[in-house]
């Protein structure tokens, strides 16, 4: 029988923004928490994303759930504002507004249709901007490419490394154990009840286990359908902000493309990096020349000021996507004590609230948030979705909205 290393009330698997949030909220409720991360804090998607806080992408895939999404992402922002009052580490969260750019007539028409639906669902904040207004906010965009945009002023960005480390540090202060370079090999389940987790040196016993491993989630819990998606992130040299307002944009058509300027002045660019034939390994974290060039050219086409700017770092990260574009948040049907918080396409806008929900559920057996529509078991019994190869967020979205 493997050595019992320690006993805890709950074990969190995954050291990203979501996992560290769960550890913090559980610790602040007095629970004995142990977080296991196979590499280092923020080594997964958290450490390789653009750090953008987008309350609601508002694409056709989930447009009908706009109000539902805003319920969670707005709560997420409130929790982060609370963090800022007491947390030792400043994770540079600021709401600078985000422009969703349309680069042709058809895309601009889509935005008009989508905004009508969002208004109907009570979203007063979202604004439609024509070309002139868009260029007024961001005069350095390429006028030949801009047909208009959609603006949400409460969107913004943060430093994802600092968010994860901030939550981990506060959790540690409250007694949580943060075990990096500790790979969870298996969630131990006996007659449908969680006993703990198996790690290289032995076993950590716990009544509750939280799977916050995002793109890797189905490796530990096969039944849930979270598929890994490869994304590219690049960071430029630090530059002053260009008036009138800090820069943050998404591309409506290929919404996997986006760019934001961080508080410290670096531009953070993101773009799709579909896995490559023949083996289509979506966990391949190496970078390839053509995809770096593609992301660089696409974004500098829309924002030419970047032409003379140097890129100083580039990474590839693995995010998680689900067949309906909504995260899987909730207790795992059929396994008592296992809670799933995975499958985020906009992790920074969901991490804090997901951590709180997981903690509430484990402490009180319930949560005030209506998480039923994100039940991890919602895909049980349905045929596994056969994604076209290769795929990325845009291909997933287009594939799932063919009928829309």
């Amino acid at each position: 029988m493997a050595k019992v290393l320690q006993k805890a009330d709950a074990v969190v698997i995954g050291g990203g923004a979501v996992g560290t949030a769960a550890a913090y909220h559980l610790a602040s409720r007095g629970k004995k928490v142990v977080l296991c991360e196979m590499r280092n804090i923020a080594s997964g998607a958290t450490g390789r994303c653009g750090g953008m806080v987008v309350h609601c992408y508002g694409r056709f895939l989930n447009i009908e759930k706009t109000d539902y999404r805003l319920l969670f992402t707005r709560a997420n922002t409130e929790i982060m504002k609370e963090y800022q009052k007491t947390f030792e580490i400043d994770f540079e969260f600021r709401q600078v507004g985000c422009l969703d750019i349309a680069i042709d007539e058809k895309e601009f028409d889509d935005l008009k249709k989508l905004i009508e639906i969002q208004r109907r669902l009570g979203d007063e904040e979202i604004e439609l901007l024509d070309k002139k207004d868009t260029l007024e906010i961001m005069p350095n965009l390429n006028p030949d490419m801009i047909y208009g945009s959609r603006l949400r002023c409460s969107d913004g960005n943060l430093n994802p490394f600092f968010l994860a480390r901030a939550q981990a540090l506060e959790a540690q202060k409250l007694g949580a154990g943060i075990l990096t370079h500790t790979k969870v090999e298996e969630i131990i389940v006996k007659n449908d009840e969680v006993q703990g987790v198996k790690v290289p040196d032995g076993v950590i016993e716990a009544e509750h286990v939280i799977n916050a491993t995002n793109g890797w989630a189905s490796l530990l819990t096969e039944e849930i359908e979270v598929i890994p998606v490869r994304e590219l992130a690049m960071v430029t040299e630090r530059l002053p902000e260009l008036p009138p307002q800090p820069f943050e944009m998404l591309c409506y058509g290929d919404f996997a493309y986006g760019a934001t300027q961080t508080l410290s002045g670096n531009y953070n660019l993101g773009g799709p990096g579909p896995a490559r034939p023949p083996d289509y390994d979506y966990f391949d974290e190496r970078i390839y020349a053509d995809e770096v060039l593609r992301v660089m050219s696409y974004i500098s086409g829309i924002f030419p000021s970047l032409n003379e700017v140097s890129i100083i770092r580039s990474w590839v990260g693995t995010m998680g996507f689900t067949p309906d574009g909504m995260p899987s948040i909730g207790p795992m049907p059929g396994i008592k004590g296992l809670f799933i918080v995975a499958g985020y396409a906009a992790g920074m806008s969901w991490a804090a609230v997901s951590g709180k929900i997981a903690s509430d559920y484990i402490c009180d057996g319930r949560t005030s948030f209506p998480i039923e529509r994100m039940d991890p078991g919602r895909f049980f019994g349905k045929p596994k979705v056969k994604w076209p190869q290769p795929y990325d967020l845009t291909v997933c979205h287009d594939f799932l909205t063919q009928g829309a």
Partner: protein
Amino acid sequence: MRIKEHPILGKLPEANEVTLVVDGKKIKAYEGEMISAALIASGIYTFRYTSKKKEPRGVFCAIGRCTDCVMEVNGRPNVRTCVTPVEDNMVINTQKGLGVWHGGRG
């Protein structure tokens, strides 16, 4: 100051003179010199001030790696002066924090 005569390297080779405008003041330099060398030869050691603490910074690695010597050159911030050669009528300004940038349209 420039080493006019070196025991091993001999006399400083002849080079055309160029003029740099540094924070509005004209200084002389010679073609082929790096901006950092020309400035230090004219007694200028502080090239920028840091964003947060406004502390003076200058040359540190001299091989273009550490970016401690960056200045605004011809309207572009973050130019590594230790690996950028001088050109006639270059406009060079001490960089304050991240400097001033016109998004390539300056």
